[in-house]
């Protein structure tokens, strides 16, 4: 059986063709994707680094609990700082997973197939990370459950008109649904691992996790329908979650925050940052596990176009903010935006503008869109730029409110930086453990875009596959 590799002569023209030309059959999919579960030295080294970062973060948090929030860089009235910035940053990262798995699924965008599993796992771990920050921020983490509505002897209930309570509902729903979506999609793949497993203990665990999945047509039929509806409700959920996060700001009268553009601006920024993090993760994975023929240049190219589009939406939102500040004629608003870009916080604003608006314009070049090294470097700048976007939203507004006596400065301390570092350690630790235990590329969905073996086809070629005209795409 010959392996075929039919790369189009003008790859960009064929970017809609997201089939996997170098994958012969279903067995190859199983073998190559399951191979990612074998531990390597690089994996252990990466896990060690992640756990070291996490240890630093935990130590700093313990110190903060012991000493009080004064050790963080808060400087009244700047009482939202690195923790809230990082909370919004990680919630944003968590958006691309469900975007790629749900929205692109509904739109039948084929390039999602081989990247959505990594993006979904990234979503779950990013939201788990984000959820820690409001708890760290409140200073007395053991009181966080006061935000949850439950019957209690004090007969007290949360204030349902508060955006912070909206956040609790939105984030907890998003985490639950993202985890459910990830796990439901994993069931058939866990069954594949179960059927390949030789070790009886591991096999028993995988049998338990696969719920006795047998790949019957009946199971697939209900699975496909359930998956479709999960995608259908996850789509508005994605849009709502970051809209609700933006209400934390937009409901206040603070200059720079009280604006109706915030929900779409936050959603676009979240998707942009999430795609940036997908590149940060998936490009090393495809290289180290030699999966370039699964996550092809066509896939990266298509995802890069999405990054370019969301970058331009975000850039447009920045410009509209400046325009409205001028056009609205409110002196405090004008003064604030001037201070943001040319005053006290110019350096943060220009990092944001450079990383989020200017550098992504390079993706107009097809050559750069198809260059994984460039995409990876750009993704790092996108991550930095999007963290600074949240810095620019939070800190300059609070440090430059209506009255000059309120004007102040803000500088994070080593505790803030350590907890920020720890959040990356926490996130990557979970992600690394995930890719060691479960397939980072969806096995069953990858098989859907591999032409099936048919009777009259001995050598697997596109022409043979066309004879039978197999239909691709998840049945529903």
């Amino acid at each position: 059986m010959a392996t075929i590799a039919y790369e189009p002569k003008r790859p960009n023209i064929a970017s809609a063709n997201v089939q996997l030309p170098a994958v012969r059959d279903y067995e190859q999919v199983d073998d190559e994707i399951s191979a990612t579960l074998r531990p390597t030295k690089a994996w252990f080294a990466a896990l060690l680094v992640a756990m070291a970062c996490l240890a630093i973060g935990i130590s700093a948090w313990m110190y903060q609990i012991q000493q009080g929030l004064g050790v963080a860089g808060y400087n009244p009235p700047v009482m939202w700082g690195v923790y809230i910035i990082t909370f919004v940053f990680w919630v944003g990262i968590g958006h691309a997973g469900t975007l790629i798995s749900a929205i692109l699924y509904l739109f039948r965008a084929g390039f999602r197939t081989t990247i959505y599993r990594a993006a979904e796992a990234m979503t779950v771990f990013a939201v788990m990370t984000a959820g820690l920050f409001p708890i760290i921020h409140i200073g007395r983490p053991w009181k966080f459950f006061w935000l949850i509505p439950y019957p209690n002897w004090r007969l007290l209930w949360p204030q349902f008109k508060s955006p912070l309570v909206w956040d609790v509902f939105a984030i907890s729903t998003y985490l639950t649904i993202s985890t459910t979506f990830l796990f439901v999609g994993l069931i058939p793949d866990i069954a594949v691992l179960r059927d390949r497993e030789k070790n009886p203990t591991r096999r028993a665990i995988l049998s338990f996790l696969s719920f006795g999945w047998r790949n019957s047509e009946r199971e697939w039929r209900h699975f496909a329908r359930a998956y479709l509806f999960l995608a259908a409700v996850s789509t508005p959920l994605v849009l709502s979650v970051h809209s609700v996060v933006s209400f934390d700001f937009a409901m206040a009268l603070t200059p720079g925050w009280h604006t109706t553009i915030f929900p779409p601006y936050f959603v676009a920024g979240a998707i942009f940052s999430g795609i940036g993090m997908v590149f940060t993760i998936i490009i090393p994975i495809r290289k180290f596990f030699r999966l370039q023929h699964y996550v092809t240049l066509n896939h990266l190219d298509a995802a890069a176009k999405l990054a370019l589009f969301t970058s331009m939406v975000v850039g447009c939102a920045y410009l509209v903010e400046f325009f409205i500040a001028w056009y609205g004629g409110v002196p405090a608003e004008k003064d604030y935006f001037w201070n943001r870009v040319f005053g006290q916080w110019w350096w943060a604003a220009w990092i944001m503008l450079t990383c989020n608006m200017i550098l992504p314009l390079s993706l107009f070049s097809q050559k750069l869109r198809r260059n994984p090294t460039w995409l990876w470097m750009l993704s790092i700048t996108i991550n930095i730029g999007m963290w600074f976007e949240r810095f620019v939203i939070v800190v300059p507004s609070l440090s430059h409110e209506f009255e000059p006596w309120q004007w102040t400065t803000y500088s994070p301390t080593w505790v803030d930086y350590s907890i920020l570092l720890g959040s990356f350690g926490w996130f990557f630790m979970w992600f690394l453990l995930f890719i060691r235990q479960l397939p980072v590329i969806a096995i069953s969905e990858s098989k859907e875009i591999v032409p099936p073996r048919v009777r009259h086809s001995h050598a697997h070629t596109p022409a043979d596959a066309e004879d039978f005209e197999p239909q691709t795409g998840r049945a529903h």
Partner: protein
Amino acid sequence: MRGVLGHFKELDSAVEAITELKHVRIGDVTVFTPTPRHEFEVAVAPPTSPVRRYMLFGGLAGCLFGYWIAIWSSTYWPLVVGGKAFASWIPYTIFGFEVFVLVGALSTVAGLFIHAGIPRLTLTVGYDPRFSHGDYGIWVECTPERAATAAALLRKHGAVEVRGER
């Protein structure tokens, strides 16, 4: 439960076998496939999955609960904020929506489990690990007298292995 299990390497062979099995009505047919295929859906012609109803009713129940918890607790402990009504339905739409999605999605998964018959303690008869790997399987549940006919039909359509199971 007894019957015949046919093991196929090619998609079109399996589809043709199912079509004929449905035509001659030897017994109930269960198809195993490593990935969902429209071809099987057409050949088996199953009824539409009822999982969508779980989403509808679960979602509606969740939506009502989301509004109810916010409205009830606001009136239970009446506290005027910004001169607004105790129960402000516009912000409470967030709770209605979020709980709609939460309960609707979890109900959908429950529907999947109920109708797909999972969790299942054993893989039962008529399953082979090769069906998750890359091959197709057809399990024909039939009486012993009709087993030979079913086996012959499966072989005729290119089954690489046919075996009786019970």
